[in-house]
């Protein structure tokens, strides 16, 4: 009987330790993921701020996507959103997901009503001639370096 109890205690202790360790690990992971970085995109790559909003933005992570249904489902708060869509719904979805910056790639020019709505919601819109792959590559490098620093 005693033996069994000890065993249980031992088991519990182990579980506690495991949980503590696991929680700590998760916390570190989350902190890493949630860590907000400041960026001024115009200084990092060839792009132009199209809205009257801050040049410098705080972000954590990037989401790239042109299917707005997908972005609505999967982008996270604080992400930079890289897309070629210029419809006004971009502004609505960025607002909904608490995205502070949208980068429009491939020389696509955003609609005037999209820009005005982004300004209302204080979302910075950048336009660039670069493509999604290049922009994401540079943002990835920037974020990685900032985490290492």
């Amino acid at each position, binding site marked *: 009987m005693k033996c069994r109890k000890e065993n249980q205690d031992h088991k519990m202790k182990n579980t506690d330790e495991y949980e503590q360790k696991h929680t700590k690990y998760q916390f570190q992971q989350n902190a890493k993921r949630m860590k907000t970085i400041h960026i001024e995109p115009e200084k990092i790559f060839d792009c132009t701020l199209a809205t009257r909003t801050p040049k410098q933005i705080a972000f954590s992570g990037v989401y790239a996507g042109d*299917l*707005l*249904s997908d972005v609505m489902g999967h982008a996270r708060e604080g992400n930079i959103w890289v897309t070629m869509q210029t*419809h006004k719904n971009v502004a609505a*979805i960025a607002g909904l997901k608490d995205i502070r910056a949208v980068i429009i790639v491939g020389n696509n020019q955003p*609609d005037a009503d999209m820009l005005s709505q982004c300004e209302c919601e204080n979302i910075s819109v950048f336009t660039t001639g670069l493509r999604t792959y290049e922009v994401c590559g540079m943002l990835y490098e920037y974020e990685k370096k900032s985490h290492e620093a």
Partner: protein
Amino acid sequence: MRLKADLHIHTVLSPCGSLWMSPAIIVQRALEEGLQVIGITDHNSCLNAAIIQSMAQSHGIFVMTGAEVCTAEDVHCLCFMKDLHQLDVFQKYLETHYTTVQNNTQRFGEQLVVDENENIIAEVPQLLLAATNISINALRSKVRELGGLFIPAHVNRSSYSISSQLGFMPPDLYPDAIEISRQISIQQFSENPGSFGKLPIIQSSDAHNPEDIGRAYIFINTKNLCFESIAEAIRTNKIISM
């Protein structure tokens, strides 16, 4: 009168349309299905619509001429024109907004303009499946300017639709109606329409093969068999589901 209508049919002009979709076969199949109104809507082109309209007329079938336009956002929209003059204007408008991608007939299929005897008059070189550079709001304005009917296609589909490309119905778009695909009933869709609210709903076959014509249809309550009456009935939701 109550008109049986299937407003979304492709012809041999659409690369994905079967080579059996000739004007004569489409009219024949519409007769077999008892359709009084059909819509000829090829991808980004109206070039086969007029001939089908003139052929169907003698059988008492009214043809809504137009196209299924792929907007810059990759959203498919049915656009119908009220007469052949407006159809011509609309066709020229579309042609100035094509991308430069050329069709590969091996891969995508042929894009044929034909006459009533199935003789090939022309082959369209640009890939009609590709998106135009017209934004959805600009397309809506153009169709309204020409007095046409604007209906976003298969809005419930997970590709090339308002839902997939734009997430939800833009509140400032004001389409005349929306189309749903044949996989769901109008009643089922209306139970949970989300951002589409109370817009009139049509349902059509999106036929690419003769056997699919009339697979889905609606009844339209209207006084006359003409564009204006049908368009008005759709705008005011005088639609009965199949």
